């Protein structure tokens, strides 16, 4: 390899191209983390059980994060998903309990999520409130509504265990492998295609990149954003139903635990915080990373309270790293250092 190589067509160029592959750098981080935990917590991480448990618990937040990834690509944010998860879970749970229906309950739960997403989209686009604030308000609004409708109760639906739907969505293939992982991967593949190969995804990319450009090339940003929030609500509902199926229970604060982990997964995965670019594969790996950190730290004997601290730390670190990869000048600290450095 040459010493001072030009940025293209050489060794360092190859390395850079590897890191520009969708999700490549984050996959590397994931492997490193697993290796570290294999050393610090060999008992847990050298067996297969912990991985099966990851694959049972990660799919719901992963599926939600896929929707939020698309929202972030368009330069928007959706914080309402914990309440959508609760609403979908409640609708599904109560319908199953009252009328013993599964597929109808499933469809209703998804429809409720889509409806909530649609309303979110209308609020963001027609009222013109920035989505970060609008969906934070909708988080309270939907959450409050679900609590009122459910009367604050919890639901246990142990009877769902053994139904066809339970086996299809969250059964254990060969007695060990969680079926929800297959569904999560299928949905991930679909979202990848949507973002990278469909005209809807292209519209989102341009809306997030530069709204004015999107407008002058004839993209109907309002319509696309309404579709976007509807999709995000639908995916959150899907996550909610899978969670309820896996835990065979509903309680109103069910989705709240996902608030941090989902947002972290999206941006640790390499989706731009500035909009205009998104990494679906990155989101998939990052959703696992967040869970693995949590489990790994506890298994390594570190107090449980520290896990949030570390996730926050990894979050800020990776978002910064991603911003530097995207454009070093967007990070003021790096810009200061670069201007102070003598030019070589």
């Amino acid at each position, binding site marked *: 390899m040459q010493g001072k190589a030009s940025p293209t067509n050489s060794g360092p160029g190859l390395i850079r191209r590897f890191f520009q592959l969708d999700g490549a750098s984050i996959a590397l981080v994931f492997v490193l983390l697993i290796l570290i935990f294999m050393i610090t917590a060999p008992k847990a991480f050298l067996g297969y059980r912990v991985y099966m448990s990851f694959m049972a618990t990660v799919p719901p937040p992963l599926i939600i994060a896929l929707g939020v990834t698309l929202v972030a690509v368009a330069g928007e944010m959706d914080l309402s998903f914990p309440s959508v998860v609760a609403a979908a879970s409640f609708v599904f749970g109560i319908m199953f309990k009252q009328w013993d229906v599964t597929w109808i309950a499933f469809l209703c739960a998804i429809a409720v999520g889509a409806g909530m997403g649609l309303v979110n989209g209308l609020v963001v686009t027609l009222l013109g409130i920035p989505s970060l604030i609008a969906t934070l308000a909708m988080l309270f609004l939907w959450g409050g509504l679900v609590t009122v409708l459910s009367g604050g109760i919890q639901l246990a639906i142990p009877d769902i265990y053994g139904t066809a739907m339970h086996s299809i969505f969250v059964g254990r293939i060969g007695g060990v492998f969680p079926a929800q992982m297959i569904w999560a991967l299928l949905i991930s593949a679909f979202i990848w295609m949507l973002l990278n190969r469909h005209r809807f995804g292209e519209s989102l990319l341009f809306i997030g990149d530069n709204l004015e450009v*999107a407008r002058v090339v004839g993209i109907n940003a309002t319509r696309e954003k309404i579709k976007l929030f509807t999709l995000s609500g639908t995916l959150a509902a899907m996550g909610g139903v899978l969670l309820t199926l896996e835990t065979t229970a509903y309680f109103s604060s069910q989705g709240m635990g996902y608030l941090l982990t989902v947002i972290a997964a999206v941006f640790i995965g390499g989706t731009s915080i500035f909009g205009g670019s998104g990494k679906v594969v990155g989101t998939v790996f990052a959703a696992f990373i967040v869970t693995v950190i949590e489990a790994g730290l506890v298994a390594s004997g570190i107090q449980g309270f520290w896990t949030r601290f570390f996730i926050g730390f990894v979050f800020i670190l990776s978002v910064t790293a991603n911003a530097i990869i995207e454009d070093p000048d967007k990070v003021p600290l790096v810009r200061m250092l670069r201007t102070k450095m003598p030019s070589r």
Partner: protein
Amino acid sequence: MADQSTADQPIVSLNNVGKAYGPVVSLQDVSLEIGSNEIVGLIGDNGAGKSTLIKIMTGVETPTTGEVFIRGERVDFSNYSVQRAHELRIETVYQTSSLGTKQPLWRNFFVGRPLTNAFGFIKVREQKRISEQIMRETIGFRSAGIDVNTPVGRLSGGERQGVAIGRAMHFDSDLIVLDEPTVALALSEVEKVLNFIRSIKENGRSCIYIEHNIHHVHAVCDRLIVLDRGQLVLDCEAKSMTYTELTEFLRDLHFRGDHDTKVAS
């Protein structure tokens, strides 16, 4: 060069067009015509109404008064949009905002009208092939290290204008509107862009060229239109005025403006 029947009919004609944003009048009673195969320079200070005029012609804005005809047909603004303007083969290249800088060239060439299958999935390979062709043949890109996967953000300002102009020509527009394409460009880049503009005419198309730099306008345009505070104050053949005369005319406008403001205040 084009046959007589189309040459006679203007591509766009405006009839007493006005536009007000609330109480702010940005365009007043403007009537003009853009013929086929001519380069028309549109000159005016900031806020003279140039952008508004362009936005009305290209379907981004709706005028408050007056009418617009495209190839003799009256535009129905209730269903006039950017897409409709594209269908009528009118294309706009905005000074900074017609390319997504994080997106690769192959997306930028086709954004807004991608080649898709029946389900809306983009035919990526075909788009890349055609983009490659436009880059090499229509705009003559030869920069090393640039291919169809390069994000537009890595191109120079002149190259970006080339991409946008190449895109417009590929989609077979009759009228290409350029909004200050040379602003903030290095001198060598400006020459490239002026050549792109000449190639528009060589391809038998028309162009509206909005520019601050009067020197550039005078060098490439067939006809000149000057707007001042929303009103059309000059519409003449470029040859009928020397560069010096044009400069003096614009300077006089400027002084008239100063005088007016003093009286007003």
